[in-house]
């Protein structure tokens, strides 16, 4: 068993470090590199950091090791058309890789099964996001997963702190946090609810405190409104609704809030009927993530949130098929994201570069991507809600068929004028 764990860890680590040494999302990493360099080169704290501040603090901490290395005279190089240096990119990924390892160990300890933990650590989508892209979703998922496990052990307070920390990295963590708060209210545990809310407010205040000095207007518009999806900017969206209607995203659709409210109601009803356990908490967190992927501005990396939650849910409800499907889901998401949203060469050489014309250089890639993703999400919900079934090769064929049909009707026949 020990050898299997070590071998899995080693493969997961090698794949990530190897990809991190040359690949990277040139735009996202340039944003992170800029903010960290601003701090370590000029001493200025970046109040315009493009994500929630908790990420900036973590990055600054690990970037300090890079500064030490550079100050020792170690040179660093830029590979191809990337915007960041090679070593710099690796140091920016250390917290992400450590998070992936942490999640692997948590899943392994919780389930006792190496393969369940490997479905996370060796999932191509997670490797792609952490190793190749360099985005920080795993940093949010580490406290998210630990929150679920604390909850399973009856440690509600630690669970709510974990969820709050997760939410301070990416707001999704506040979904299970909110469901836990509802549970406390439904069970009339008002003291627990107050403690939970107080802890979250305290952590949020600590996290945002340095930003408050930069002016409340920037804080309000740059953080509160932007991260609630109420920004005035009409930015692109990858969800199926926007892709089919041609709409530009300008604030959250009312469907997002309607859906989250419906999830909250369903969670309370479910819990009242079947008991306040981990199962409804995981189930409705999964549904909320799927809903956000369909109706909000849904960045492609958001799909990764479903992977650890589905693995835990699969173990909890003995849905072997769901665990297997989760791994396949990751493969499909990686394939779609690389070929339809970025081009194969984008993360490799740092500029859009098509290698396979037939699957990359096609019209209406976002429509093909979003409709196929919708198909995979609906299938995932099928595994979650219907009686447990094994993961069969027919599902691979089904998803391939959806992709080919969407490709034909939307990219070749162009039946939707967007």
């Amino acid at each position, binding site marked *: 068993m020990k050898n299997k764990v070590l071998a899995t860890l080693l493969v997961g680590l090698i794949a990530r470090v190897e990809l991190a040494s040359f690949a990277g999302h040139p735009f996202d990493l340039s944003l992170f590199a800029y903010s960290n360099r601003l701090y370590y080169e000029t*001493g200025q704290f970046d109040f315009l950091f493009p994500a929630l501040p908790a990420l900036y603090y973590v990055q600054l901490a690990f970037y300090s090791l890079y500064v030490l290395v550079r100050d020792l005279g170690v040179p660093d190089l830029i590979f191809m058309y990337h915007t960041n240096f090679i070593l710099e990119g690796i140091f920016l990924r250390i917290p992400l890789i450590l998070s992936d390892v942490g999640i692997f160990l948590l899943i392994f300890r919780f389930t006792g099964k190496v393969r369940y933990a490997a479905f996370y650590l060796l999932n191509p989508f997670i490797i792609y996001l952490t190793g190749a892209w360099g985005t920080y979703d795993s940093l949010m998922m580490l406290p998210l997963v630990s929150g679920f496990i604390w909850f399973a052990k009856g440690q509600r307070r630690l669970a709510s702190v974990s969820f709050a920390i997760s939410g301070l990295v990416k707001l999704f963590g506040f979904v299970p946090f909110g469901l836990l708060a509802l549970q406390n209210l439904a069970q009339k545990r008002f003291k627990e609810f107050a403690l939970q809310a107080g802890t979250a407010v305290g952590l949020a205040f600590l996290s945002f405190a340095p930003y408050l000095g930069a002016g409340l207007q920037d804080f309000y518009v740059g953080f509160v409104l932007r991260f609630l999806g109420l920004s005035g900017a009409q930015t692109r969206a990858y969800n199926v609704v926007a892709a089919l209607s041609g709409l530009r995203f300008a604030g959250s659709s009312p469907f997002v809030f309607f859906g989250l409210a419906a999830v909250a109601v369903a969670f309370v009803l479910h819990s009242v009927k079947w008991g306040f356990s981990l199962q409804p908490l995981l189930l409705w967190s999964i549904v909320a993530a799927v809903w956000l992927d369909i109706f909000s501005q849904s960045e492609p990396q958001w799909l990764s949130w479903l992977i650890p939650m589905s693995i835990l849910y699969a173990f909890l409800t003995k849905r072997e098929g769901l665990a*297997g499907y989760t791994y396949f889901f990751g493969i499909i998401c990686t394939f779609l994201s690389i070929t339809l949203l970025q081009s194969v060469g984008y993360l*490799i050489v740092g500029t859009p570069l098509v290698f396979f014309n037939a699957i990359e250089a096609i019209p209406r890639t976002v429509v093909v991507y979003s409709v196929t993703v919708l198909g995979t999400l609906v299938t995932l919900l099928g595994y979650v809600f219907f009686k447990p079934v094994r993961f069969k090769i027919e599902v691979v064929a089904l998803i391939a068929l959806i992709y080919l049909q969407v490709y034909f009707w939307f990219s070749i026949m162009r039946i939707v004028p967007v």
Partner: protein
Amino acid sequence: MKTAIYSTSKNFRFGSKSFRLYWVLLLLVLTLAIPTIFLRGTLQQKSVLQTNGLSNFATLEGVTLGPTIWAESFTNLTSWSLSGSAPAILQLNNSLALSVAFASKSVAQAVSTTRSANLSLDQNPIVTITMGVTRGVSYGIRFFGVTPNNASFAAWREGDSLQHRPGLGTRETISANLASEFYLANQKPPLAGSRITKIVFYIEAAALASGNFAMTVTKLQANSVLETKATSMELNGNFTAVVADLGPAITNQGLFQVFVGLDIGGPSGLTYVPYLTSGASVVAQGFTYVTKVATTYELALLQPSFVSSSPLFLGKPTSSSLIVSAKTGLINFFRLDSISIRYLAAPSAAGQILDPANYQALAYYYVVFLFVIPIAMVLLLVKVFRDEE
């Protein structure tokens, strides 16, 4: 209290697993926190810069359309001419109707109709055109003129937003600032006394495209520009655009991002686009923004990679300007609060050397580490070593 302390001390026995874990975590936090504090501002490399864009702020002015100085009545056919490589019919009946029949050919084809005009650039005319073109072809509008010395010039350029527009099959309203068009095309302001003498509308079909297509122009007029200057950073009125002169032209070398803090008010449905220009060039552009219910304040992000259009009004040729251009509706209130201009040193060319023949090998290497090795390992765990669990 005694019980609580006893309970805590019981959980944190020296040598216990949890105790060791907390120590490891504490050490890790300290190991990272100390250099974070003490290494601030010490990195020798200088690759980033953030400047205050308002440090040389000069003026703020609101711009809007003034009275009509010329309008086409679409009644005099002799003032229009027709030319091109395909059969076409031009008709005027309080609007212009150009019908073209393109036969399938191996090369692109075009038909154009030209209207003579006499619009002085000294009046800074804004031309407004309402027109529609059938789907399947592209169209465009070009302006030509003469200087006071009778030297002819073109006030259009390849790649500007008036060229090669796809026919949408619906009516569109297009505006063009003739002085700006001259400026963008020639990279210098027009000489005093220069005039636009010719307006050309064209329809073009790609190679192998065939069929009957039409262009309809229902409005063609020119208006003067009204400018309202403000000495402070605040303006009230009804404006199509707001132009802030930020002082001497900035360099766009290494320009990374621009953050603009602004207060803006207007009717519901007001949408606007912020631009940063340096002389005649648009160096950064923002998203299209809508006004919010929650606040009039917006922190707009502009980036060089977002540049896809030009504003209707430009600033001074020797200055950098922030231009906030209304897309729909009029701006009633505007206040400029902050501008942060960020530079990021461009990577050296040395980093970009790799033989393109090796790109393919690199892609395979990428696929191996992303898909092949992880999937092979998972298959081993699921199929071969499963019984051990």
